[in-house]
């Protein structure tokens, strides 16, 4: 009962603990996500600036080198011009040196104003087919541009005889301000750019360079797929050409930059949040539980204090010290609780010496079987008075230490005992009065029953007197035998009457049902004879014994028989003059005793008062018989009731539990 309410009160705090833990976890997770977001932003910025930086570096290098190339060819042009007419050999030497020094150049031509190559040198990459300058529109255009403006310029991109993309660096050769031709350096942009910016490239970026949207250089980091969304492009103009640099950070750069670390932070952070939530939950739950335990402890303490008795627990079989004994022990015994808790006295020491073996045996037995036990016994309290106790308990297997404990509860039933005793004495007294009353009413019948053997004796005595006087002794021994028999018969009647008349404390004994019934029938027969009624006794074969106070049960049967006979006589026995007395075994192992009369039955109007004391429908009698009979049967653990018979009369019956089987049979 109490655990039920405790379980209920547990639900609230636990739910609160869950919500608190979830809230804590959520706050923590939000913090982690915010942190992750900041880190991620930083990483993005870092990646962006790095890419930006890379773009500008590339631009710078390309600009510078383009300028350098122009200046270098300008120097060659100047030298050609200063010397006026330099020897072809010298020129070719210079040009070859440039060719070697400046990677990317595949050929250098001296082209006159008519767009005819005068001198030329070619590098290994230039291929066997020399550039047919006049036929390349882009070169011609550049040449014309240079002639018109006198400026150094780059040609547009074209494809050379080998199919490679190619551009030409055009530097005008001026002599005294007159345009004489140009120095044209043919560049393979890919090799050129590789030599210029190749060193710069690392594993962080993919780099693509376009000239007027045509790819001329590509730096691809191995084993990495570029994500075009991450790309940054930059357009600029250098040497009269439109350049585009496109840089894409590698995914490894991106991940090392932010993805790895931040997602790790995120994962760990969320894990940490979950752990925090869990920890919070357990912390709250534990706090709640300890609160609850405290509450339960308080409740239990109040409960124990207010219990009308004493609860105890032993760690082992009876005899071992009590591990716990509740406050109630002092009220029961008069000894303070400390007497027992310190082990100065054991509860069993108080048990009355006459009861001790029974009590210890009973508890021990229950301890062995694990069944609940209930014992009633006397104790001698601190004042030396005797008090009655009822102890109920059982052996309990503990889940904590896997030992069997003994738990029990002891109440004082002295008051109850006294009341029970008084009630029993009262009942016995009433029963006795009823028996005496009944015997009084039956007196003439009983006297008749005794008179029969006495009459026979008197007759036999006269006969023997005659025989003696006439000195005939032959039949005397036969007559003496009969005398003894009749004397015995008379004494049996007196015995039965005496038993019924005696007032004795009720004592239960094993009685055979048939014997019980036959005895009563004999007691009732003389009266039945007077009333001209026949008692028909029927007992089922093999009835079990009953454990009863035979006198009281016979009194009940006698009461019922006499009531029945009276009912029959009141209508002049017009339904027949046989009254049935039956005993039979019922399915629930009880024995039913029934008195079946052929009287007038029980009128509906008198049903209610039938078993009430001092209610009677008879002319004589106290009206106690049925109420006492019912009390007697109830005290025997049975019940008395009646039913009207289908044809005529009524059946009054009572049931008694069968005595336990004798062990020997």
């Amino acid at each position, binding site marked *: 009962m109490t655990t039920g309410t405790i379980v209920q009160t547990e639900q609230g705090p636990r739910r609160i603990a869950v919500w608190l833990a979830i809230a804590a976890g959520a706050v923590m997770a939000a913090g982690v996500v915010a942190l992750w977001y900041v880190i991620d932003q930083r990483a993005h910025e870092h990646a962006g600036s790095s890419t930006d930086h890379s773009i500008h570096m590339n631009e710078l290098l390309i600009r510078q080198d383009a300028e350098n190339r122009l200046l270098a060819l300008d120097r060659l042009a100047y030298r050609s011009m200063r010397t006026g007419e330099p020897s072809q050999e010298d020129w070719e030497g210079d040009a070859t040196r440039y060719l070697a020094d400046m990677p990317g150049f595949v050929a250098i031509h001296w082209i006159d104003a008519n767009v005819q190559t005068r001198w030329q040198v070619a590098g290994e990459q230039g291929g066997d087919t020399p550039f047919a300058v006049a036929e390349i529109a882009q070169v011609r255009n550049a040449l014309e541009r240079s002639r018109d403006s006198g400026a150094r310029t780059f040609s547009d991109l074209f494809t050379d005889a080998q199919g490679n993309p190619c551009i030409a660096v055009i530097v005008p050769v001026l002599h005294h301000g007159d345009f004489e031709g140009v120095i044209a350096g043919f560049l393979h942009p890919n090799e050129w750019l590789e030599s210029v910016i190749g060193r710069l490239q690392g594993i962080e970026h993919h780099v693509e360079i376009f000239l007027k949207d045509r790819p001329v250089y590509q730096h691809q980091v191995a084993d990495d797929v570029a994500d075009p969304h991450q790309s940054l492009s930059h357009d600029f103009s250098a040497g009269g050409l439109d350049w585009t640099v496109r840089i894409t950070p590698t995914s490894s750069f991106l991940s090392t930059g932010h993805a790895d670390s931040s997602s790790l932070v995120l994962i760990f952070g969320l894990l940490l949040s979950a752990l925090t939530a869990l920890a919070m939950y357990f912390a709250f739950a534990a706090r709640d539980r300890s609160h609850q335990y405290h509450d339960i402890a308080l409740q239990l303490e109040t409960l124990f204090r207010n219990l009308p008795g004493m609860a105890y627990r032993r760690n082992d079989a009876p005899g071992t010290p009590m591990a716990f004994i509740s406050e109630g022990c002092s009220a029961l015994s008069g000894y303070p609780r400390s007497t027992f808790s310190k082990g100065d006295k054991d509860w069993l020491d108080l048990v009355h010496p006459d009861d001790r073996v029974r009590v210890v045996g009973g508890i021990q037995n229950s301890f062995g079987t694990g069944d609940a036990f209930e014992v009633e016994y006397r104790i001698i309290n601190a004042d030396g008075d005797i008090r009655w106790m009822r102890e109920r308990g059982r052996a309990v297997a503990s889940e904590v230490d896997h030992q069997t404990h003994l738990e029990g509860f002891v109440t004082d039933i002295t008051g109850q005992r006294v009341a029970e005793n008084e009630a029993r004495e009262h009942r016995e007294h009433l029963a006795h009065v009823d028996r005496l009353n009944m015997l009084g009413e039956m*007196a*003439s019948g009983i*006297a*008749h029953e005794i*008179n*029969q*053997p*006495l*009459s*026979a*004796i*008197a*007759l*036999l*005595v*006269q*006969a023997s*007197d*005659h*025989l003696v006087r006439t000195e*005939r002794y032959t*039949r005397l021994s036969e*007559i003496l035998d*009969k005398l003894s028999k*009749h004397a015995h*018969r008379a004494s049996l009647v007196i015995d039965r009457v005496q038993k019924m008349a005696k007032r004795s404390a009720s004592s239960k004994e094993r009685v055979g049902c048939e014997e019980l019934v036959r005895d009563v029938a004999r007691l009732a027969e003389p009266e039945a*004879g*007077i009333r*001209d009624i026949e008692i028909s006794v029927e007992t089922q074969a093999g009835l079990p014994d009953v454990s009863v106070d035979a006198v009281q049960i016979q009194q009940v049967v006698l009461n019922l028989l006499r009531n029945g006979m009276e009912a029959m006589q009141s209508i002049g026995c017009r339904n027949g003059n046989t009254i049935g007395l039956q005993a039979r075994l019922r399915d629930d192992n009880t024995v039913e005793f029934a008195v079946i009369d052929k009287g007038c039955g029980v009128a509906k109007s008198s049903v209610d008062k039938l078993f009430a004391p001092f209610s009677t429908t008879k002319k004589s009698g106290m009206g106690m018989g049925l109420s006492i009979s019912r009390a007697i049967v109830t005290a025997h653990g049975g019940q008395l009731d009646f039913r009207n018979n289908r044809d005529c009369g009524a059946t009054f019956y009572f049931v008694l539990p069968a005595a336990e089987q004798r062990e020997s049979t």
Partner: protein
Amino acid sequence: MSQEQTVYIVDDDPDVRESFTILMETVGQSFKEYDSAQAFLGDYHEDMRGCLVLDIRMPRMSGLDLQDRLNDEGSLLPIIFITGHGDITLAVEAMRRGAIDFIRKPFHEQNLLDRINEALDLEDGKHKVLMDKRQLLDRFNSLSDRELEVLELVAQGKMSKVVADDLGISERTVEAHRSHIMHKLGIHTLAQLVRLKIQIETLSEAG
């Protein structure tokens, strides 16, 4: 004596009957026992001789009931009632109805046999008287109507002549009738005749 006297015992208790049997056998008295009033009634006839020892309390038909029946039948059997402890009222009633005696169980007085013998003597006397009366009546009944008329007038003390005149017959015829009457009734004197006439009148009045 035409019949032996028998003691009829009616008691429902077998032990009592058995003891009676032994007692009667011991004293050599002829007897017969019955376990109920009905059983006795079944056997009963008016020529029964002896006496009846009757238990006053018996199932179905009590001793008193039986007594009533026997009285109705005109039985002459004297009845000794056996009564119990609390049956004084019943015993008085029985005596009022003509029982000759009652003895109380359990026969403290050792005189049951005496009582029985007294009853038997009484019955014997009664029987003799009855037999005499019967004889007388028989004789009386043998008279013819005319003889009865003559007897009536003679008993009134009328002379034969007066009788003859009254009856319108001759004096001689009256004398002859007187002689026949004397002979039939077994008497000799007129005084005897008158006494007899009175006896018969009381008898016929009694029943």
